[in-house]
Structure formats: C-alpha cells, structure tokens
C-alpha cells in the first residue's frame, strides 16, 4: 500500500473514531430517552443527526454552496496560521487580523465610487493591507523586545474587537438611520460576485467568489513556499532560526514580514466576508473563525494543500451541523466537539492504530510548534 493511500486510510479512520466518540456523547446526554429506558430512540436520533450532517454538507448544490461559504474564511484564516507556523511563529491573532482587514476593506468598499473591476481588487488589497499592518505588530514586538507572540496576539484580538466595536459607532462607519453597532453597506461595485451567478435567481446559493480569492491565496502560499527566496528564508527561519541567522538571513525582519504575510491572509478573510457574504461589518464578523483556523492549520500540517483540505472539511462540518440542527434537537455545539475530536485523532496516528488494530509502521504527525523558544 502506498503512502498516500495509507495516510488517507488513517484520516478516514480518525474521522470514524471522532464520529464514534461524538455519538457516544449524543446518546449519553439524551437524559430523557435514557431515563425512559428508550435506548432505541436515542440511537435513532443519532442516525438522523449524522445523516443530516452529510446531507447538509454535500447532499445538494445548496449544501455544497454552504460548505464552500463556510470554508472560504476558514481557508484564508487557516493560511494566516499556517504561514506563520512555517516561519516558526504561532499566530493566535487571526481574529484580530480579520477584523482589521474587514474594517479597511469595508472602508474602501463604501468610501469610494469606482467601477467594479477596480473597486473589488482595491478593496481586497485594502483588507490585505489592513490585516498585514495589524499582523505585523506582534512581529515587531517579538523582533524588538522578544515579547512572545502567543501572548501578544491573544491580547491584540481583544484590542481589535473592542476597537471595531467603537469604530462601528463612529459617524464614519455607522449606518445612517441606525444606532446599532453595525456598519454602512459597501457599494455594489465592491461586492464580490456570487460563485454560482450563472444559476440565476438562486439566492440560497451564498457561495461567493471569495472562495476563488482563497484558492488563489492558497496558490500564492504554495508559490511563496516553493518558489521564492522569501519563502525559503521563512522556512529556514522557522525550522532553525540560528542556522538561518548564520546563513545571513535577517531573521528579525523575517519575523515581521512573516507576520505581515500571515496578517494579510487573515485580512483577506475579513475582507471577503464583508464584501462577499454580509455586505457590511459588525463586531462579530470574525466570529470564532480565527480560532477555528488554528485547528485548520494544525490539521493541515501548515501545508497549502493540507490547509485547503481541512478548511473544506471544517466548512462541511459547519454546513452539515446546521442541517443536523434542522433535523434533530442535537445542538450545533456538537460540531465543536466533533472538530476537536477529529483534530485529536488525526494528530494521533498511534492511537488510531491501536484503536483499530492496524498493522504496520505509522508516520508520526510531526511537530508544528517548537516550544516557547526565547
């Protein structure tokens, strides 16, 4: 059996293991049914729930559209975490960077009147720049003072979300006629076209061309890593900072540049949400995406393809979780559990091997984060 097939089998087994453990949780928390001794009922809830999970993620064009819609920001924010990992930095700050990108993209989106062919790219660039600028801060702090990015990015998330809340109530951003902390709409010319525009009036197909932007960004990340001197420097620094310094690389500037690149991906995640999905910004526009993105990156082992695949998987879980909720009374919080379990099992091939009594050598998952450094 070749390597790809083997790792695919492990991934599948890991997902099966996660579904199994979640199933256990669904059943044992069905207190009422268990109290009545109605075990069959608890089990059938389970069947409906998992069928909904599948149906809602891949069962129809709309399901696929929803999966893509969910995967778009996860992929971009996931790239923000992955690219930082590649440079040896742990970026917990994708949330803040997304908010920064959402705000700058939003501003360009409503403050200018331009033809769409100009407006959309300009707003996208603005959100990338906004995210990059915000992302560079922890890079600068680390390069200049040694402050660990895990601390600074967590703190900057809090700072970003309250700054945005404050900004949304200023005259510049506030939607006319409303007191709520909700922004103006971006101009139509700055809106990202729908992905399934050719389907005409299907307004239920929410997927937008932000997904194309995300795919392009994935390609850019791949290209950066594989083809450029900068990507080479980032990886060398990430793997062995001292050797990179000995090789004449400016590792401190690289920290800043790497964080800025990471921030620009996250900024695009914020920008595409505003320009593609909502048309406006609120203080919750980033949601938990920046956090889920860490799981995406960990799962994808920080590679471009891995990040893409795990973002799609998480997008599918999100869309499927919604359908599961429609079909049963299993709360959508289960999806968070399921994700945690999938991450855990995929990262633990040895455990999966022991659970399913698989024979043969297992390739370890490898290490993403090399201690606290310092």
């Amino acid at each position, binding site marked *: 059996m070749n390597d790809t097939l083997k790792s695919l089998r492990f991934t599948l087994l890991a997902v099966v293991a996660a579904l199994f453990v979640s199933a256990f949780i669904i059943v044992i928390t069905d207190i009422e049914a268990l109290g009545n001794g109605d075990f*069959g009922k608890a089990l059938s809830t389970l069947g409906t729930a998992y069928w909904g999970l599948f*149906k809602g993620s891949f069962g129809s064009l709309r399901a696929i559209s929803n999966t893509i819609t969910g995967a778009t920001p996860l992929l971009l924010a996931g790239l923000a975490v992955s690219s930082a990992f590649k440079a040896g930095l742990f970026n917990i700050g994708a949330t803040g960077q997304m908010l920064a990108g959402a705000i700058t993209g939003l501003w360009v989106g409503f403050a200018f009147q331009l033809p769409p062919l100009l407006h959309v790219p300009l707003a996208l660039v603005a959100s990338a720049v906004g995210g990059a600028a915000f992302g560079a801060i922890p890079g600068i702090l680390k390069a200049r003072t040694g402050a660990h990015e895990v601390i600074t990015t967590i703190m900057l998330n809090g700072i970003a979300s309250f700054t945005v809340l404050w900004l949304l109530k200023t005259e510049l951003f506030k939607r006319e006629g409303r007191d709520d902390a909700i922004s103006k709409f971006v101009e139509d010319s700055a809106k990202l076209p729908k992905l399934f525009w050719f389907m005409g009036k299907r307004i239920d197909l929410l997927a937008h061309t932000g997904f194309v932007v995300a795919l392009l960004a994935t390609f850019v990340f791949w290209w950066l890593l594989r083809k450029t001197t900068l990507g080479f420097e980032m990886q060398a620094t990430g793997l062995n900072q001292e050797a990179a310094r000995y090789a004449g690389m400016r590792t401190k500037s690289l920290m800043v540049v790497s964080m800025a690149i990471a921030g620009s991906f996250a900024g695009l995640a914020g920008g595409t949400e505003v320009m593609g999905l909502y048309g406006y910004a609120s203080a919750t526009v980033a949601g938990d*995406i920046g956090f889920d993105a860490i799981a995406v990156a960990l799962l994808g082992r920080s590679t471009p393809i891995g990040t893409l695949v795990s973002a799609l998987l998480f997008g599918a879980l999100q869309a499927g979780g919604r359908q599961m909720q429609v079909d049963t009374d299993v709360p959508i919080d289960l999806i968070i559990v399921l994700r945690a379990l999938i991450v855990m099992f995929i990262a633990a091939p040895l455990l999966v091997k022991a659970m399913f009594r698989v024979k043969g050598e297992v390739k370890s998952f490898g290490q993403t984060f090399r201690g606290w450094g310092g």
Partner: protein
Amino acid sequence: MLARINKRVRHPSYEREKHTMRKQRGLKSAALAIAAFALIASACGSDDAAEEVTEDTEAATEETTAPLPGAGVLACMVTDTGGVDDKGFNQISYAGMQKAEAELGVTIDLLESASDADYAPNLQSFADKGCNITVTVGFLLGDATKAAAEANTGLNYAIVDYAYDPPVANARGLVFATDQPSFMAGYLSAAMSKSGIVGTYGGVNIPPVTAFMEGFRKGVEYYNAQKGASVKLLGWDGTDGTFAGNFESLDDGKNIAKSQADEGADIIFPVAGPVGLGSAQFALESAGKVKIIGVDVDMSVSNPDAAEVYIASVLKNIDAAVFAAISDVVSGSGVTDNYVGTLANGGVGVAFTAVPADLQAEVEAIGAGIADGSIKL
C-alpha cells in the same frame, strides 16, 4: 476562549428556565425518532424527503391536542449567536413562541446560529420548510431577515430589536421603548436609595443596552429635580460608562456590583444579561445592603433563589410581542407595520417587587405621565 470575548454581543436579558421547553422538544424528537429509521431506509430520496417526514410527524404530534385556531400554522425562530438558552432576548422570544404553541396551537420550530454566517442559511431552511412566520432575534439578523422577506413574499417575518425604515410588507420589526420603564426605575431607585448613590452598568456599549441605562439616568435626574435631591448615579454619565465587555462572565457582574457598592451604591441596575446574575449573587451575599433592579422580565420570579434582592424589574415584553406577531399571522391580519412596545401599549413596563405602596403609586403616576406624553423623556 478569548477569541470569544466579544462574540456574543447580545442584549439585556434575564433568567427564565422553561421546564416545558425541553419537554416539547423531547416530544418532537420522539416522533422524529420513529421516523428516523424509515428515513435512513429511504435515504437515497430527494433532499426534501427528510423535511416531509418531519412535517408529517409534527402534524401527528398536534393531533393529540384539541383543534386551535393556529393548527397548521408553522412558526419558526432563528436565534442570534447567543442561542436559545441565553437567559436573554433569544430565550424570551422563544417563550413567546411556546406561548403561541400552547394557546394558538401553532407548530413551532427553532434553529440556533453558531455564527453570523448561519443567519442566511437558517432563514433559507425555514423558507424551504414553508414557515408561515419566522421570528428572528437581534439587529445582526436585520439584513438577512429583510433579504429573506423580500425573496419569500408569501411568508411572514418578525424581528426582535430591529425596525425597518421604510417598512417591509411582510416583515415586522419589534422594538421597545425601554428608556420609558427604565426612567421609572431610575426614579424609584433614587427614591429608595439610603446612601444617595445608585449604580448601573451594561454588558457591551451598544444602543439596545444603553437605552436602558440612559432612561435610568434620566429617571434619577428627574427625581433629583423634583425632590431637590442629589442622588448620584455610577456607571453611566449619558455618553459612556461601565461595561462588562461581555454577556457571559457572571464573575464580572459580581465584581462590578462589589466595585459600585464599595463606592456606596445600594441599588444597582445591571443591563447585561447573565452577567447581572452575578450582581444578584453579590446582593444576596451583602445581606440586604445592596438591592438590584431586574431587567427584561420580572427577575424575582425568574431568579427565585435571589428573589429577595430585587426591588423591581424593568419589563421588556418581547414574548408578548412575538406572540402577537404570530397571532396576527394566524388571524390573517399580517405583519405589515413595525411594532413599538411602549408604556402606553404595555409593550414595556415595571414590575414592582418590594416597593412601598405610596412610592409605587408615585412611580406608576410617572409612568402614566410618560404614557400620555405629559412627561417628556
């Protein structure tokens, strides 16, 4: 997780645990479950198969109840990210739904949103299901609800804490003049404070929260003007003040209450959902030194363990407004106009718990004055 610090920007809320809620859902799932195997058996059917089965079973559930005017009407609700158990406006709205189920015989259904990205798909799910009325909760759903209403002109919508201007033909905004009862509460607090200092604080600095705080402030000022007193208000100065920064950390509520009590406040008005429960806990431990004004519903009823700490509650009758909207759909009169809950129409009010009778009369008179316009806010 810290990423969530400000995730749940939601609304002032309260505490009411409906035991019936779970039961209803339980019944529904029981019926669902029976159908589930059949469903799996016919799994290769179309998308809609599941929904048809669901509807059938729900119809079956209803047959056990007596025929009511709302039979056959499907009323649905989409929460914001706070979820239906938020002890806040989602939960109160759902109480209105349950009331409609019990009294009108409508069938109800619910979808929670885990993030802003869920709003549109959830509304779409309900449109597919043919919900005669879909209630959404919170200003963040404003644009998504409008879009759904415009796409599904045959269906009705109502949204809590949002008003459409210009109005949308088949979507009713449900908003509440919460500053009016808060004004009464402010007056009441100023009158009852022994220390001459009262406090308020909010969850997050957004208008649905600060409307309460501003009304409260004006009520205190009104008392000072009327009585020549100088009761001082902590936590809100008309433009800004003290906020927990979230609607989740009960420990913040306890600490803020303590912090304000340290400055001498003996009556506190928390406008912060579950965070306010932490303040009630502090009041409980203060052995009568500190009292709390409840928010949204009569907290002495919904938080019975701490009933003694509440002197009154500012009511925002979301459940009644939701019920009324469903009722209008059942009766066929539609949901064209926005609804503004005021003291005059009973959409907002004050519940008195431990207020001397004469003061209560005085405050009720002020309420009447606001209602008839003789007292301007």
